[in-house]
């Protein structure tokens, strides 16, 4: 078995679905800050990402108006930047979910 091929494929798949998974997590109604979101991702999926790669992705989601962020002061003096999903983000994640279900159905039917 070509393990290298499977590794490359799964890595591309992870990259491709990461924004979908993050939007789905945010769509549950709770706001998350970066580190918290990474932990949620680890706990809910088996996906391990280099933690720093989350931030360029969040910036892209923000520039597409799918998420918004706001700084919240903490007693430690080091504020957290919380992300929440926008109404546009909710519409997009709904569309993505339909597409994902259809794709899943197609793959299983082959």
């Amino acid at each position, binding site marked *: 078995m070509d393990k290298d091929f499977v590794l490359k494929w799964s890595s591309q798949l992870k990259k491709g679905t990461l924004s979908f998974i993050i939007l789905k997590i945010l769509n549950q109604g709770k706001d998350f*800050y970066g580190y918290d979101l990474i*932990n949620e991702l680890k706990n809910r999926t088996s996906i*391990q990402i280099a933690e*720093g790669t989350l931030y*360029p992705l969040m910036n892209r989601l923000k*520039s597409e108006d799918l998420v918004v962020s706001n700084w919240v002061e903490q007693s430690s003096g080091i504020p957290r930047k919380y992300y929440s999903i926008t109404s546009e983000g909710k519409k997009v994640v709904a569309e993505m979910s339909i597409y994902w279900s259809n794709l899943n159905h197609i793959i299983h039917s082959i």
Partner: protein
Amino acid sequence: MNFTEVPFTDPNAARIYRDYMNRVRRIARKLDRATQQEIVMEINSHIYESFQGESNYAAHETEKLLDTLEHLGQPELFLKPLIADKAMDQATHTFNPIKVVRALILNLTNGISYFLFALCYLLLFSFLIAIILKEIFPTEIGIYSNYKNIFVIGSVEDQYQDLKLADEYFMPIMLVLSAVVYLIITFLLKIKRSLNRRRTA
């Protein structure tokens, strides 16, 4: 909102933390002040939260911090797409030609590996095709140079025929050049593969 340093009691941990944050600042320097501050504060917040959440309670501060920074990754790598996106955003909003050029250069470096591969493959195929063409057109195909401003591998007009060099060694030279380019491609592929693995690990 102001930047607050993560406090460390161990001077080694404090030094490692400051070095890392300086690297983040250096990379973000290409952006406007507010965006720089935003990026630095978010990475700082991540380090603080991750350090607090580090499960290895018994570990020394330095070890815990090194774990945190290892999980976060090399700022030069993970911040690159973020900086390129933000620079492009700023450039298109300000219409400042200097910013636009800077942003284009930043975005170009993301695709530079593909450019290098394309160039290497083009060279490799060119050398191999030159060998085939030499068999078909033995007198026309060659290496031509006047050691100044002319260097051609292929065919030239009749007036430049006297610039032909090392005709008897044309095939071995092309074979050696093909082998060198092939080795460069293999080396670049290995580097790219290990970088990709590190990014996706």
